[in-house]
């Protein structure tokens, strides 16, 4: 995408004009950023069982996947694991435009972080990430996952 920046001291109201061919996720992300609505996940380091660590902001782009375990939601990033104070359903809705799709009852994966999809001998399909971890794409969510990928391609 071409980016033009104009400095005009006389401008009374700063503004952004976006020319786009179709409303794809990247454009939506741009709109969210301009409107200061870009979703950020707030979380705490999940190491040990301490919940009183410093709260930090996590950029969804850095998240490999979200895992719901023992009624707690964890975000797996390259920098570590963080506990997120939201529900999986909320995150699913919030991060739809950011490449996140549900692949099982307890996992939401970032399709932009998947290195490859691999079928196992037992016919289960795993999404493998750059950090070496893998998440099973549950067959109940297969259709939804397929539709999401098609939708993302159509919009991209």
């Amino acid at each position, binding site marked *: 995408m071409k980016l033009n920046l104009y400095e005009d001291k006389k401008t009374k109201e700063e503004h952004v004009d976006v020319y786009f061919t179709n409303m794809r996720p990247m454009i939506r992300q741009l709109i969210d950023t301009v409107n200061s609505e870009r979703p950020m996940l707030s979380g705490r380091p999940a190491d040990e069982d301490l919940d009183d660590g410093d709260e930090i902001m996590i950029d969804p782009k850095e998240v490999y996947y979200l895992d719901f375990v023992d009624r707690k939601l964890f975000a797996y990033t390259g920098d570590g694991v963080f506990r997120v104070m939201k529900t999986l359903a909320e995150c699913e809705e919030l991060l739809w435009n950011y490449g996140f799709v549900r692949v099982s009852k307890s996992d939401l994966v970032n399709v932009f972080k998947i290195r490859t999809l691999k079928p196992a001998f037992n016919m289960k399909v795993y999404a493998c990430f750059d950090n070496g971890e893998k998440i099973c794409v549950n067959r109940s969510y297969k259709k939804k996952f397929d539709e999401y990928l098609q939708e*993302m391609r159509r919009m*991209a």
Partner: protein
Amino acid sequence: MKAYFTKLLIYLCISYTSISLTAAVYNLVNGNEPGSANTLVMFAFCLISSIVLSFYELLPDVSPLAMIIIQYLVACALCAVLLLILSLIEPISPKGWFEYYRSFTIPYIIWAGIYYFSVYLDTRKKNDLLKEIQKKEKE
């Protein structure tokens, strides 16, 4: 196009099954053809197998391979119960039992193999799609 052929195939299956069943029942009632009872038994086997296979989406945590084996065993057991009931009316020879299991197992294994292969092909296709999406996102 795919949807059209799927629909066509469904119509063909329904019409063929309806005609065969009607003919078999008619012949059985009128005592025209002795093979009509076999058609009805085959229909009962197909019905049992279809019901068992339709439960594929259940137990999502069980691997597809394990699910295929479980479904095969359940379908075999239910069909065996049906045969056992039918053998009370007309005795079935040991060869008859063997023939039944052979004619049930061979198509099942072939379809399971096709399904297995389709999982690999589908995953490969999805991998290409993923790469395409990721490439476009980076641009």
